[in-house]
């Protein structure tokens, strides 16, 4: 029999070792899954983790990595701030959609005007859209004590309906011959979020993500607000005793994560996606939850985690085209990663001891 024993101090070693160990365990379990599906596990794992970085098409795929990692990092950092404070915004997908719709609407409204101000205003509108959507669960929680998990999640479904309406109705391309989807931003330079260097995959979203990660790191480590976020998550009563106003903290954390998700949505719709369409959103808002935990809710860790998760997306697509691996298998793979991560994390605060005799 084994038994868990609480460590007096959290283990520094396991704090950093948890993510790599979880990744290795996921590779093993994932390999078993792929084998069960009749694929060569080694080849699949290699395709996912090696090909995008060093394979024949790496010159293109590395860029794709940044394209996918940008929104994941941006959203995950916002979520992580809330998670640390015990505020569970899990409706980032909805905020992402609403940010995209608001930002795109601004751009499409002034089409075809050319001005340097258009894109910055769109960015602002995107952040505002996500922020406003996140304010709904935030205010309901602070005013009526309503569970923000359920409300923010319900709003994802509402946002998806609005997106469908936008793509087929109020934002539909008037010159699109009745097909759903808005005008494409790639043919509207003043409003487009183009690549900063051709072929690099880096657009303003990636730059913002790096900047936000650094700012969040400084905030958490050195600013009173960051301290209060950590304190509120670990010991809510102590946080009140310290002087944290829970209402303001909820508004701040929800607002921040909503705005960042909205930004990510705008960057995506004006850049890689190009247009508002019924299904332009690809579940980044949910995958970002995995990224946030994989990065140990630490902004710099999230940058690494976002890149790793992007790798599984890009590599997964490779495996899908080259080896016929279903896209859903990658989703399962990502889910397993989160399980292993949460499970291995127990070693940070506990150690395992054999017990004499049965108990």
């Amino acid at each position, binding site marked *: 029999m084994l038994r868990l024993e609480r460590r007096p101090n959290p283990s520094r070693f396991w704090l950093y070792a948890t993510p790599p160990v979880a990744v290795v365990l996921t590779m093993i379990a994932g390999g078993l899954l792929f084998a069960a599906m009749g694929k060569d596990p080694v080849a699949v794992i290699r395709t996912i983790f090696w090909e995008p970085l060093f394979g024949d098409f790496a010159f293109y795929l590395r860029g794709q990595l940044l394209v996918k990692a940008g929104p994941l990092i941006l959203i995950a950092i916002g979520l992580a701030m809330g998670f640390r404070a015990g505020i569970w915004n899990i409706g980032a997908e909805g905020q992402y959609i609403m940010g995209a719709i608001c930002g795109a609407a601004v751009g499409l409204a002034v089409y075809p005007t050319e001005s340097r101000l258009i894109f910055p205003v769109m960015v602002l509108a995107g952040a505002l859209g996500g922020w406003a959507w996140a304010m709904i669960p935030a205010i309901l929680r602070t005013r009526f004590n309503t569970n923000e*998990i*359920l409300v923010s999640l319900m709003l994802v479904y*509402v946002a998806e309906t609005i997106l469908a309406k936008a793509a087929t109705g109020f934002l539909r391309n008037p010159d699109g011959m009745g097909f759903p989807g808005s005008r494409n931003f790639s043919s509207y330079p003043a409003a487009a979020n183009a690549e900063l260097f051709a072929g690099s995959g880096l657009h303003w979203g990636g730059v913002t993500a790096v900047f936000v990660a650094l700012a969040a790191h400084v905030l958490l480590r050195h600013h009173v607000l960051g301290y209060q976020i950590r304190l509120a998550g670990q010991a809510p009563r102590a946080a009140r005793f310290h002087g944290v106003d829970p209402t303001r903290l909820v508004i701040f954390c929800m607002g921040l994560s909503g705005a960042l998700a909205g930004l990510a949505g705008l960057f995506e719709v004006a850049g890689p996606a190009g247009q508002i369409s019924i299904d332009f959103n690809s579940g980044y808002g949910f995958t970002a939850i995995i990224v946030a935990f994989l990065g140990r809710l630490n902004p710099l860790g999230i940058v690494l985690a976002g890149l790793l998760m992007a790798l599984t997306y890009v590599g997964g697509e490779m495996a899908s085209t080259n080896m016929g691996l279903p896209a859903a298998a990658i*989703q399962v793979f*990502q889910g397993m990663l989160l399980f292993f991560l949460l*499970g291995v994390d127990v070693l940070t605060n*506990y150690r395992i001891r054999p017990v004499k005799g049965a108990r």
Partner: protein
Amino acid sequence: MLFGTIDPVTLVAALIVASVPILLAATGELVVEKAGVLNLGVEGMMITGAIGGFIIAVATGSPAMGFLGGAIAGALLSLIFAFLTQFLLTNQVATGLALTLFGLGLSSLLGQGYNGIKPPATHPLPFGPLADLPVLGPILFGHDLLVYLSVALVAGTAWVMGRTRLGLIIRAVGENHDAAHSLGYKVVRVRVLCILFGGAMAGLGGAYLSLVRVPQWTDGITAGAGWIALAIVVFASWRPWRVLLGAWLFGGISVLQLNLQAAGSAIPVEYLSMSPYLVTILVLVVMSSGRGRAAVNAPASLGQGFHASQ
């Protein structure tokens, strides 16, 4: 007139059927939460039950086996949650989310190749002439076994939780796990069993979706039903009979909005299809703002991990 061409009797009969999946899932989650565990993976367990039940039903040609398979699939998935939260002491919120993400992926993976297949039909119970009664016939005597079983399960849960020693122990564990432990009750064991029950119920509810309600397999078939089930538990203030009320309310809204869409109502389709989610939010607000009653009935240890330190 809002109801226009919609026949109220058909509507009530339809809402009873429509409410079955969330009713089952919410009843299971109620027991889980009464034991002090918050499992946010209902959506994942439901959809895994939906595909598990669908596959078994198609393979065996028997809907009954399908329902059983769905329950087992849901319970198996919940086993992961039970192991992680009860033995490895992981955060219940995060683990529940992981379960949902994993379940959505897994069901999609397992469901490859099952799109467009028709499952074996589930027939209404033969009530003979009773089924032909006006009004009462379609409402009370026109359904399949699972409809009656789901109501019976609510009754059974209400009885066990309120009247038996087993229910008392479950409530005690959810109320104060330290006290339950010091009296010698096996907190972890009780919770694991409750989680498995919750998983089986969610899986059964999912199977009903794919085998009866829709009836076919499509990715994301649950479309938030699991989350609505979680909301219904709050709505019901953790009381089984009120879960039934809540499930009927939501079943009614979803049936009504579908009917209104079909009837070509003046309200745009989008607003109709988002109505169940908006109503859920509204109900949560109303239930949570009357802080007193609901808060007192919520299990005191809900969502907290338990570790017998010494």
